[in-house]
């Protein structure tokens, strides 16, 4: 690529990426790691949908399995990861938006507020919907 020719004799170091080298890289990896938990939760829901297609008994059995202590533990871990992702992604959101006069911290706080409002609305919907 390009018209500039590389220097003929150079040493090319083998440099595996050290993801733990700096606080920024570690923060990035933690943020990315949360997506694994979200995929796991999506699979749990998809599995429930598949059980629903098999009839009411299968669906109820799946619902009952969610009360297992291991399932509760898993959901707690997923919840914490989702919370961490919400916090960390809105922290980096300002740089994904065009330059503006709005302070980055205000953008982040607006994101957190929106997430909180939506969470409360969804929770209210579930409670009012009479989910058992």
């Amino acid at each position, binding site marked *: 690529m390009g018209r*500039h020719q590389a220097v003929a004799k*150079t*040493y090319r*170091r083998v440099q595996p*990426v050290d993801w733990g080298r*700096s606080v920024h890289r570690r923060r990035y990896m933690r943020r990315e790691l949360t997506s694994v938990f979200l995929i796991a939760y999506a699979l749990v829901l998809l599995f429930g949908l598949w059980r629903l297609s098999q009839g009411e008994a299968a669906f109820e059995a799946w619902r009952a399995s969610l009360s297992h202590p291991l399932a509760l533990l898993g959901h707690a871990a997923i919840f914490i990861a989702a919370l961490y992702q919400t916090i960390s992604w809105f922290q980096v959101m300002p740089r994904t*938006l065009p*330059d503006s006069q709005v302070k980055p911290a205000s953008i982040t706080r607006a994101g957190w507020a929106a997430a909180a409002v939506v969470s409360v609305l969804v929770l209210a919907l579930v409670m009012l919907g009479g989910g058992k």
Partner: protein
Amino acid sequence: MTAQTSPRTIRIEAMRYNPETDKEPSWKSYEVPFRDDMSVLQGLQYIKDHLDGSLTFRWSCRMAICGSCGMMINDTPQLACHAFLRDYMPGPVRIEALDNFPVIRDLVIDQTSFLNKLEAVKPWLIPKTPRTPADGPNPQTPAQMQKYQAYAQCINCLLCYAACPQIGLKPDFAGPAALALMHRYNADSRDQGWAARAEMANAEDGVWGCTYVGECSEVCPKAVDPAHAINQNKANSALDYFGLGKMLAPSEGGK
């Protein structure tokens, strides 16, 4: 006052590589006397002047504006003139050529790959109709200048390329500085080169090569914030894909 009378010393460990004699780099240690006001660059200059004249490194301005003396200092990309020996006490200070670049000799890297990437983003004003000096001044308001001024501060020091893990994984990724400079021209009210640069921006090695680690902006000595330049253009690139032009792109710099 007694603190200044007896100069302290610090050990500097420098990466050495001589292409004519060495198969691979090695490390060499030097005991360097220093004062509190001495930069790492001055430490290297002391070595070259008094201990080992063969140590090779680039430098010029000594005040963080030429971008020549970028190197890995204790695993962090920094300008050697912008880091002070006193901050590394009790030492040692481990100095290496910038990560993610081939080494020509000692601390000197081959910048060729960056020069090609830089040229590919067409980092110059592309006006709607060609202009000549006879056309006179091409004025803009302070507000228009503010849209790109921060990105114009790039000094091509390449610290961001050494910091970027994606450059390490995908050497063809255009990288932080080149994409920040692309945005600098796209955001300029006197420029109409968006379309000419779009192919480069939209490519997998363009803005989409970035996974937003954000370390480029952390190490930048001029606060250019390449991560912001790149990631705001992902939205532009997506809109461009759907034929929506550049709704979010900087105003007046468009097609």
